[in-house]
């Protein structure tokens, strides 16, 4: 396996050529020991590829690197391995090898990708959380990119729902990017796994992210786009998913919201529309696990004057000035009610004195 890893880690040679090489010689070890003349004789290897292989042979201390890999609990899963996700084999090009911390998605479970903008609105974030939570609690694995915004929210939701979630990174699996998601990164490893095709220690470079997106869509059966601007990386994921023959669903938003323009375009192009998590589950043909206790309509549990304030709020943040105008309450009375609602977990303060409904 050490030699297989050696071959996989030659980043200068493309995945396809590495595959041809390995298939011609049978094992990574055999490739390691080919004579230089023989290598040069291979027509699909250019000069620079040969040089890269020779250099890798000379300079790489593979034993040490292999030990390091084991020490960090990083699993190396090449394309011919038993463990290699079957779903990924159908992607083109399939990654030559995966590096995994934690587990890989199960083959027998349905998996859904939740993707979207990094700069998202509280609405998108809340929805990602909700879909992640609901789907995960019904046994759907959530695949995403662990990025800021929608990705992270979707995976956090999955963790809240007690399900499995897998993060596909655009850097080495031992690198946590973005750094503030370190908590999420650790939790995901426990409840699922982080996956990457990049070698250990690889920094998060912009060029790796579109590549990563193909793995996200490849690992999942369905892709949910929560919020995307007109030109967004999430749309790349959606396009790739369509190419791979996966279903794509998009969450509608306000038509005036720039953050939802990409989603609306997808819907016009024929993507499924996300109406509610329950609706989606039904459409995917998954039966709901013993139905979670639906709480009473929240309005009923609120006091009358709290309800006045609550009914003015929505998923887009409203400032206190606007609320005063709408409810006709005084500043101090309004603040009291907002705090009461916040303590009940019905609303959330997203910026100073800006509130959204969360339940």
């Amino acid at each position: 396996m050490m030699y297989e890893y050696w071959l996989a880690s030659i980043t200068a040679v493309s995945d396809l050529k590495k595959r041809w090489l390995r298939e011609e010689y049978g094992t990574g070890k055999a490739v390691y020991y080919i004579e230089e003349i023989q290598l040069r004789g291979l027509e699909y290897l250019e000069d620079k590829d040969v040089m890269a292989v020779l250099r890798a042979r000379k300079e790489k201390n593979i034993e040490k690197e292999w030990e390091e890999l084991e020490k960090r609990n990083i699993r190396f899963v090449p394309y011919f391995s038993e463990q290699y996700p079957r779903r990924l084999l159908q992607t083109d090009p399939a990654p030559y090898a995966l590096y995994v911390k934690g587990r890989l998605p199960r083959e027998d479970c349905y998996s859904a990708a939740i993707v979207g903008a990094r700069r998202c609105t509280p609405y998108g974030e809340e929805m990602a959380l909700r879909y992640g939570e609901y789907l995960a609690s019904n046994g759907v694995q959530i695949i995403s990119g662990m990025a800021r915004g929608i990705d992270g929210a979707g995976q956090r939701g999955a963790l809240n729902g007690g399900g499995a979630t897998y993060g596909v990174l655009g850097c080495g699996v031992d690198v946590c990017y973005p750094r503030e998601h370190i908590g999420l990164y650790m939790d995901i490893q426990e409840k699922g796994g982080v996956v990457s095709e990049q070698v250990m220690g690889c920094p998060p470079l912009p060029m790796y992210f579109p590549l990563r997106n193909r793995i996200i869509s490849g690992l999942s059966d369905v892709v949910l786009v929560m919020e995307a601007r007109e030109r967004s990386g999430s749309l790349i994921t959606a396009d790739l998913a369509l190419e791979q023959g996966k279903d794509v669903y998009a969450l509608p938003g306000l038509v005036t919201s720039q953050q939802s323009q990409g989603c609306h375009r997808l819907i016009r192009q024929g993507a499924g529309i996300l109406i509610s998590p329950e609706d989606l589950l039904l459409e995917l043909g998954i039966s709901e696990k013993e139905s979670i206790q639906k709480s009473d309509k929240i309005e009923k549990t609120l006091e009358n004057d709290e309800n006045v304030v609550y009914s003015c709020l929505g998923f887009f943040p409203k400032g206190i000035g606007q609320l005063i105008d709408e409810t006709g309450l005084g500043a101090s009375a309004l603040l009291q009610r907002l705090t009461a609602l916040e303590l009940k977990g019905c609303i959330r303060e997203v910026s100073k004195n800006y509130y959204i409904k969360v339940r």
Partner: protein
Amino acid sequence: MSFSTVLSAAIQGLHVELVHVEADVSNGLPVFHMVGYLSSEVKEASERVRTAIRNSGIKLPAKKTVVNLAPATVRKRGASFDLPIALAVLASMGSFPGEQLEDTLVLGELGLDGSVKEVAGVLPVVMQAKEEGCRRCILPAQNVREGALVGGMEILGVEHLTQACQYLNGECRIEAVSGRMPDEAGKEPAECGLDYADIQGQEAVKRATEVAVAGGHNLLLVGPPGSGKTMMAKRVPTILPPPVLKESMEITKIYSVLGMVDKEHPLMTGRPFRSVHHTVTKAALIGGGSVPVPGEISLAHGGVLFLDELAEFCKPVLEVLRQPLEERQIRITRSRGNYVFPADFILVCAMNPCPCGNYPDFNRCTCTPPQIQQYLGKISQPFLDRIDICAEAPQIRYEALAQEKKQESSASIRARVCRARLVQQERYEGRGIWTNSMLGVNELREFCRLDEAEERLMRKAFSSLGLTARTYHKILKVARTIADLDGSDGIRESHLKEAVGYRMIDKKYWGR
């Protein structure tokens, strides 16, 4: 008579040291010699004094003149010694009887023509002189009103050196402005043209400032550009209780040292409002110089210090505010000694919610979450910890601009604030504190006791809103103020709930 002495004064920081100006005219080589630890502007006085005396029509004899400013250990600065030096020299020449100058303090700068010009720092000097038993002051005519603020003193204003000589010779009379308490003090502050009624809408911010002022809490206003944060801050002094005479004198003293008092109405009957630009240096803010002069925070003493665009201030500059915010005075240490300036003010800060100012309006905000985090990160946590109330100043909407609803005036808000302040003063009598913002942990336990229902509410808030011990204490203090405004003895649930709404933004959750 060849020797005479005149009383004058030197100012160091805000501290006044009485100085004896001695002159001796004797036979010898005709020199004019000045000694006594003088700065260069005092040394220059010799030229001014001699020329002014000659231009006043008095001939200086060709004799040796020695001037000494005692005590020699005190550094003398400024031009206010010109007149006392001239009078001392003239007295020792015998132009008028030296006894005339007994118990008399003299200040004044001289022009070459003998005219007497105004000087700074008159009020603290006259106050000190009174304390040390003087009964008469000869001041530049422009400074007379300022000197007269100190009661029980005979204040004489002179315009020219000749006039002073004639007076001391008994050849003319100067109408003494007898020291009397100005009747403006302690009354309604002078009309400054600002009023809360000018601001349409913005109820929430108005309420927040009312609470802040009532309890002496520092305030942070967060809002997009053009939301009236500055307008609001400028009006905060109008709802502060008017200063009592003692406070007015204290404030005027500081302005006097810096030569910033109004010549006609020297007493500061309103509370100061100091708006500081974000390029301000540490020295300008807290006071500085080799012999320190008071900075902006002392000029804001008794009033409001306003920092607009808080996130644009240099971090180190904001950090120097931490200690004065805590101690309500600033202690500046130099090799020549310690200087203490009062700095008891309400801090009002304003900032945008993000670099572009539009967060959380996602259609207009162009900032990324890390940018917003970085923007907030410019203000250190210890600094934010000293601000009790945080409120949002919303974008002004058209409806608010168009409506012509009558808004509550500053006077009626001030009445409520005064009532709440009075309650606090009575409650904390004899403890060295007078507002809720000054409560320490022990006093919190004593005065902010919670009943069972309130206790439950706070426990819930603590866990579900992720409060810390510090935010918890701040909420209690603010709730105490709201209860005082409400005229309630105990803190009720409604007070706590409102106070929770004023808590500081949590950086961790903002811009996520």
